């Protein structure tokens, strides 16, 4: 196996009485409509992808698109109807109950949309819970949990009950709980959807800060395209159980694969998503302006600088070597061009 931590090979999830049989008969050609006529609902339709170590894959889709179902297949909260799923090279679907529990206890953490905290336990008890289940001795687990409380910034509230906390605070507890066993793989199922916009932004920033530090392999589910753009290394866009496109945010914005994806990208402010590298031209020997910009910066941050120049601006890589040029007109086109009126 390569460094793919999660690997899916044509995963199907079909709900219904004789789903398995119908899937076999369909021969890899699953049509949602014919299945529905036979009383089956297609949740995930032929999903294949890999997530490599330390990468954050955001699965984006509207409600009913199957994104949560996909996540539950990979965490095996539901059993996939067909296909193969490998977690660090282990065939997930062939694991026995015991092995699955071991895997969850040591490798996986999950955050839920409605927080899913245990109402009868305090903040600390909630965070300790996975450790306690695992059988870690009390003192050690409490110390660990206190670290987690500090990590998510809830110090001083560890003896509160979930009902005494705001939504944002509750989700911090959820995050802390999912991290308590130091999992390698981190599943987040619309973690910020139930929060107010301001809190949501704050939590997203906090989440990025955490990820910077922890470098987990992440699958993140959201229905918010902006959130996906902000957080993702790569985005998978789902519709009716099918992954419509799976690519980096920039590539999705620049080259939406289908009409459906295009609808999302149209309204996106490109300058906030794209980096210079995405729009630069090949290096030329023309006379360039005096300033240089790095190829990795987001356009928005250097747009003013570039636009103040008459000539093209040189683009450099990390070794300060010129790898391309950007003309101010290109920036103007990126920001204002190509949008629907």
């Amino acid at each position, binding site marked *: 196996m390569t460094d793919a931590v999660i690997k899916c090979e044509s995963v199907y999830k079909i709900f219904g009485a004789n789903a398995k049989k119908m899937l076999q008969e369909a021969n890899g050609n699953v049509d949602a409509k014919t299945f529905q006529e036979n009383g089956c609902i297609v949740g995930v339709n032929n999903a294949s992808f890999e997530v490599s170590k330390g990468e954050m894959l955001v699965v984006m889709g509207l409600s009913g698109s199957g994104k949560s179902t996909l996540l539950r297949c990979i*965490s095996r*909260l539901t059993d996939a109807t067909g296909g193969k799923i490998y977690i660090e090279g282990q065939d997930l679907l062939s694991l026995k109950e015991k092995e699955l529990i071991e895997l969850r206890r040591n490798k996986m953490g*999950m955050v839920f949309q409605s927080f899913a905290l*245990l109402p009868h*336990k305090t903040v600390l*008890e909630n965070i300790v819970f996975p450790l*306690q289940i695992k059988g870690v001795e009390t003192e050690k687990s*409490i110390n660990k949990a206190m670290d987690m409380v500090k990590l998510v910034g809830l110090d001083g509230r560890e003896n509160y009950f979930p009902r005494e906390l705001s939504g944002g605070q509750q989700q911090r507890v959820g995050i802390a709980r999912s991290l308590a066993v130091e999992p390698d793989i981190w599943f987040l199922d619309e973690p910020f959807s139930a929060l107010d916009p301001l809190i949501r932004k704050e939590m997203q920033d906090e989440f990025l800060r955490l990820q910077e530090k922890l470098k987990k392999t992440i699958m993140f589910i959201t229905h918010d395209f902006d959130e996906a753009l902000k957080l993702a290394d790569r985005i998978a866009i789902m519709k009716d159980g099918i992954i419509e496109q799976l690519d980096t945010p920039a590539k999705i914005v620049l080259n939406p694969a289908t009409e459906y994806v295009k609808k999302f990208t149209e309204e996106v402010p490109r300058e906030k998503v794209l980096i210079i590298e995405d729009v630069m031209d090949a290096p030329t020997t023309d006379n360039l302006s005096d300033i240089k910009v790095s190829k990795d910066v987001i356009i928005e941050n250097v747009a003013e600088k570039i636009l103040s120049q008459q000539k093209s601006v040189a683009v450099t890589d990390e070794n300060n070597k010129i790898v391309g040029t950007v003309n101010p007109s290109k920036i103007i086109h990126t920001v204002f061009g190509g949008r629907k009126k």
Partner: protein
Amino acid sequence: MELVKKYPKLFQWLFLLVVFFALCFAIDVPETYKFIRGQAEFIKDPNQSTYTLFGKEVRYYAFDNFWRLPPLLGWLPIWINDGLFFLLNEWMPMEFWDSATQEYKTRPLILQISRNITAFMTFLIEFIREILLGGVETIVAFTSWNFVSAYPWVKLPGLPWTIVAAGAAILAYKLSGKGLAIFAGLVMIYISVFGQWKPSMQTLSFILVAAPLSFIFGLSLGVMAYKSKRVEKALYPILLVMQTMPQYAVLVPAMVLFGIGDHAAVIITMVVAIPPMILLTLIGLRGVSPEVIEAGKMSGCSNWQLMTEVLIPTARRDILIGVNQVIMVCFSMAVISAFIGAKGLGWNLLLALNQLNIGLALEAGLCISFIAILLDKMSLAWANKQTDYFGNLTFYQRYKNTIFFGGAVVVGAILALVGSFFFKEGFNYLYEVPHNKGISTADFWNKGVDWIFDTFFVYIKAFNTWLITEVLQPMRALYLRMPAVATLVLVVGAGYIIGGIRSAFTVGALTLFIALSPWWDRALVTTYMATFGVIISCTIGFVVGTLCKQNKYTTNFMLGVCDIFQTFPSFVYLIPVMMLFGVTDTSVLIAVIVYATIPATRYTIEGLRSVPDGLHDAATMSGVTKLQRLFKIELPLAFPHMMLGVNQTIVFALFMVIIGAFIGTEDLGQYILKALSDKAGGGKGLTLGICVAFIGLIFDNLIRTWVEKRKKHLGID
């Protein structure tokens, strides 16, 4: 025609009523009809007809089949009886080792099983009883009679009441705090001072066995039903019937199986207390949000951990209500099972009521109620208790409750010892205040009752007479005047209009069972008494609930009152009404009304509470007055929930009507009571109980179906 289209339901109802009354008037009362003594008296009357089914001869008075259906199910009770007898005495004889006679004996399997259960229960009860009251039985159980007779000093001394009181207070303090501790102490002192110690401890030992066992069985069965659809399907009909089955009715068959005494009482209590526990466990577990379950799974819970650490604690609210119910049932059974020889307060209460010694009955009743409230509060506090992980406690802090209890034991023992020198006349008041040697207020109450009777006799009598002759008798006559066929049409029609074919079929079948049993007339009397109580209870409940809901403090106050009243054992309600109205139907009805008003009030308040705030504000902004808001918005929306309250009210009313048989009524309850003293009463008691349960289920089915439809229509869940 347009009107018909606009209000189709209304016209269906009108049509149904027209048919019903037409039938009522068309079918005359046959001349041979007598108020049926349902094949009870076993004397052959020349007017009787007979038929034989399954080898059983069933007698009945012949009359027009439209008027009353023949008792085609008359063989059922006899058959059940014979079945029980066969199971117990003949089925599957097996060899068992008899340790008393040191030889193998042949005994039927069921009899042996029931003997073993009996022995086990008796041991548990005796064990606790002897810790509280002293004795030798336990020592015998662990050693032998030889040992005990060889050493005369061998005797387990009971705990002096001071120690038990202190223990209760300390436990209450540990569980909840000062308030409950003081209450616990006061209750214990009250019991002791009023000379009710011994019966109270007997009752307590009975409950300390019955309640935990019911809880454990109920919880495990509930969990099993949650896990397996098949178990649930098997349990569901039993749960449904047991919900509305009067507690009396279970006494009889249990008596056949397990004999009489405390152990039988514990078993019956379990039979009655387990179903609500199962139901509430199931409701609680179903209500746990799927994400919480998933969170548990992702934390790596095994199935067992998921159940014990996640599901059950999260469903705690409903499970707690279950515990509450279990305790309630245990206490009300503690009294009722006195009928089959359970010792304790219930026995004294029954005795006092029998002698019409209201004062004594009141004292015993108060004792039971206090203990009930205490245990109820303690179990709640126990379930809500939190553990503190950061306590860097000193040895003293950690063990202070234990130390205090140890101290109390020493002090209590010394006091008891000192007392034995001090009180020479044989009663050591510091050890145990003997029964009837405490302070008694019985005389005071009896005089009070006499005074009330002397002073208000005329008015009470006048009221009584008026109620009976002007309201109750005519109402009863009306109910009895209904031809069986007309009643069937009415019930089935109502079922069809409310819930369609399915519902019509269900209620029709339930009614038919009662109609074909030999007790249709009695069932009508039961229904009439229950209806009367329900109508008045609901009126009071709706009004009081609505009024109380207008203010936050009265709301909480009223809910608190409901909580406390609900904890009283149902039998206790008979005491004050007998004080005022003596042994008449009025007494029963008033007890019914008081008892059944509790759910009516509670559900009204809860229903009004559940009206969303948004609607409240929207109405206010449309400029409605307070009254308009109440009648146009709040009441219609709360009405479905209030109807569930009516449902509960009916169940409560039926219970009380049946218990009222003790005072002397003419309904099914009276026959159940009679079956208790009948050697072959098991089948009869059970069949009668099923009849009562079915009356409840008919209403239950109709109301629930209506509520579900209405809620869907209103878009509230």
